[in-house]
């Protein structure tokens, strides 16, 4: 038995930017040796959104697959370290919590740590949950060092805050050196096979036709192939996530390089702050039904910590996703496939998932319907689980403004309503293996936004109250000691070759 059919050979990526170049670099690295010819078409005349300056720890796996050295990446992209996301004013004005890349506490008995914490909390005998988490304690003190495996410290992970434009540019270099062909030009036509409806080529303004066997749509919100050409319906989720506009603007760093991203709730939306080595990325996400553009822009500008680096740029979007991200011979990756607001830094992660799922299901000789179905199943699951987690931030609020009252009153997915009740009534957490946000994430947001369990796993009652108090105190003390022993984040950046911190390169 031998395999004679023609392999899928020509891959055309439509659109540069973060999604396009991440896809190109990954395909070139992981599948380049199999005879793939990869062409990326982009136009300098079309701007990129430059999504996702803040990432999740999964980016480290992606970089590792691409053979990227973290130290070099940090220098090339003006990156800082990220140990989590601080949420300010989300429950009530004045509240603050960090969603960490780590865990809470340690094993005390058969119940989970949060059950023991909830029991002690009900008796007023416990510190805030964040004080049982090493990356939170380190982040609050501006400290960081890479996790090391001596087994005595609470495990944690980290991600990066980087300049997405620089990251894309660097991946562009890597991809092109691995054989990816970059074609400059605006696409003016898309040709389809008259029988199958599959895309056969894209044509540029100069008349050149670029033919392909598989097309990857990284054209951003325009969704040139998956949307405009293949007319794949868009599932609108704005009834759950109604924010639909944003302003973005960089500014000078006011001196706080804290190893975390910040999301501060505002009157009808929220503001992000992402400290990089050379600037701070800022943005305000809002809902136009509650805040007009001018007021939103003013609110953003009034809350910058340093001199602005550019004029504010407005983005308009609808949250949701395509009903199928792989249709015919076209796979949509990045904003072309869907958009979930950047509240939990999921944009780059969704790009990464799209790429890695595609690599795993990459066709040999023909695109099988079973593979398309599986790709769409995996991506649907990811989008939906992220969606529920994002909605939680909005519905679990106690603020008084009209927008926030409306958020509390809006219908939510049944799956989320059950999760909130499970936690409030019995400290139960979602139980699934596949999904970006695992129990630690849910605990962070629930407790951070004042959804406190009324009861807990009765097994947590098996330990004597005094003994429980001693155990919690010991855990708290060890974490505090470990956090203080870490070097400063800025020192780490300097040792990692940062060009801008401590005044270098300014």
């Amino acid at each position: 038995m031998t395999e004679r059919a023609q392999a899928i050979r020509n891959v055309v990526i439509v659109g540069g930017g973060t999604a396009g170049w991440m896809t190109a670099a990954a395909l070139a690295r992981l599948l380049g040796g199999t005879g793939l010819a990869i062409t990326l078409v982009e136009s300098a005349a079309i701007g990129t959104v430059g999504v996702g300056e803040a990432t999740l720890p999964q980016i480290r796996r992606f970089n590792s697959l691409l053979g990227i050295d973290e130290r070099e990446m940090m220098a090339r992209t003006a990156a800082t370290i990220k140990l989590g996301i601080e949420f300010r004013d989300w429950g009530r004005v004045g509240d603050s919590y960090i969603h960490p890349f780590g865990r809470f506490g340690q094993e005390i008995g058969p119940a989970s740590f949060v059950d023991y914490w909830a029991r002690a909390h009900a008796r007023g005998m416990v510190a805030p949950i964040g004080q049982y988490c090493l990356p939170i304690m380190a982040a609050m003190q501006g400290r960081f060092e890479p996790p090391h495996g001596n087994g005595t410290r609470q495990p944690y992970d980290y991600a990066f805050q980087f300049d997405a434009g620089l990251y894309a540019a660097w991946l562009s270099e890597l991809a092109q050196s691995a054989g990816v062909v970059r074609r400059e030009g605006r696409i003016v036509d898309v040709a389809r096979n008259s029988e199958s409806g599959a895309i056969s080529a894209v044509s540029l303004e100069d008349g050149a036709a670029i033919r392909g066997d598989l097309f990857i749509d990284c054209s951003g919100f325009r969704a040139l192939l998956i949307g405009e050409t293949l007319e794949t319906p868009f599932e609108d989720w704005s009834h759950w996530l109604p924010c639909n506009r944003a302003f973005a603007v960089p500014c000078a760093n006011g001196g706080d390089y804290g190893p975390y991203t910040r999301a501060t709730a505002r009157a009808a939306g929220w503001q992000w702050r992402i400290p990089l080595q050379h600037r701070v990325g800022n943005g305000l996400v809002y809902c136009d039904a509650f805040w007009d553009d001018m007021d939103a822009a003013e609110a953003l500008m009034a809350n910058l910590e340093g001199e602005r680096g550019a004029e504010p740029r407005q983005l308009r979007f609808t949250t949701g996703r395509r009903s199928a991200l792989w249709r015919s011979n076209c796979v949509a990756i990045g904003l072309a496939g869907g958009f979930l607001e950047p509240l939990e830094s999921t944009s780059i992660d969704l790009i990464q998932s799209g790429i890695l799922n595609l690599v795993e299901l990459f066709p040999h000789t023909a695109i099988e319907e079973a593979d398309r179905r599986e790709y769409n199943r995996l991506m649907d699951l990811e989008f939906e689980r992220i969606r529920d987690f994002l909605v939680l931030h909005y519905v679990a609020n106690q603020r008084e403004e009209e927008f926030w009252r409306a958020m509390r009153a809006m219908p939510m997915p049944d799956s989320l309503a059950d999760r909130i009740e499970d936690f409030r009534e019995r400290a139960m957490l979602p139980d699934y293996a596949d999904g970006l946000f695992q129990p630690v994430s849910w605990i962070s947001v629930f407790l951070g936004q004042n959804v406190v369990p009324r009861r807990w796993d009765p097994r947590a009652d098996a330990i004597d109250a005094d003994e429980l108090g001693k155990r919690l105190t010991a855990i708290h003390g060890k974490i505090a000691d470990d956090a203080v022993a870490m070097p400063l984040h800025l020192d780490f950046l300097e040792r990692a070759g940062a060009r801008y911190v401590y005044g270098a390169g300014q």
Partner: protein
Amino acid sequence: MRGECGTIVVVGGYEDIWPVAGLLASQLPPHLTVHVIEQSASASSLALLPVDDRYFGALGWGVSELAAAGARFTLGFVLDGLRRDGKPIVAAPSGDLPAIAGLALHQILRRVAAQAGALDRLAELYHGFSFCARAAESGKMALPADGPDTPLAMLGPLALLDRATLAEALDRGCAAPNVVRHTASAIALERGEGEVVGTVRLAGGERLETGLLVDLRTLDPDSARGDAIPLPLLETAQSRGIAFELRAGQPLPAYHVKPRGEWDRSRPFALAAPWQGNHLRLGPAAGQISGLFSADSRLLLAHALDLVQCLPAMRDMTVEARRFNALHARTIERLAELVAAPLALNTRSEQEWQAVRASPVPEALRLRIDQFRNRGRLPEFDGEIVDRQFWIDLLMASGVVPRSHDRRADAFDPRQLDRALGTVRAQLDQTLREISSQAEFDARIARG
């Protein structure tokens, strides 16, 4: 309904109640009391369960505790009667085989076989690397802890247990002061407002107030028709007289197709929501899947674990019931597809076996088979009960040979691949030669 749950009543056959009561007793808070009502024992039966099953982990049991409960240890088992040629399938739970540059070994082997024009020999080539199955076939026995940095770490030892002996060990080991034993051939349930079970009345007249009733009394499947998860393929098998039994066997335990006329006539079933109000049906009261893969015993142990995880905090146990029912549905889905796999992939020619092949396959299993057949990929789902490598072994042994492989495998230099595969195979063979025999292992366990 306010107030704490207070009292839990567990009722059922001896072999069924003690795996539940034993685990409850080991984790019980002092304010909860458990009344255990033993009814008559059912016929003794065997179960073949992973030594590292989460249930045993929750009990704090390892090999020595299982040995004290009468376990015999093995590395694999035989599946008999599923193939047209009559050859048995040897299956062995296993951790992942060594990956090469992150790619699963079977993907690499498929690429090598394709390049050599020998795809018809892929199963044979793969078998050479099936370390755990080969160890089982050759009568060897060891534990992963015997060589954590060697291929022994892949071994997935199993414990062959007599369920009555296991129950006795759990009964003996239960010294919790808040566990109270009762014996009653029959009970009556007295329900209060909202169909809540308020009191359990024993045949002797004693009355036990209950916050939660854990009911393990075997349920007549016909009474569950209105509230059942469909199991069409398993029902077809049962209606065509196909059922399995586990025999101790030598050198390996074996699942055999029961001779015609001896099969269990009770229909497979699974309740959709076994926890209603304060009445929780567990094990044989909530579902009966199959004797194959000790599915019914696995269901009971999974239920015991899910119960302790969902112990009610208060008399209003809505959220606990919802979570338990969701976990139950997931366990049934995973168990049903596991049992359905060898049935759906049987190659026998008789009419009844053809009818089983023609039955609708559970959705997750269909996806696994399609993906594995298309490209050697194995999708994973929440609540997996066997690991990835076991699925790969089972599908390969059942004749599902990938038509294609992960395209990344084509990127390797064939000479480097030959060298890497040769090294892996040599390591596996060397370790295989060094593993102790079953008799030597048994003697070691006996010495303690």
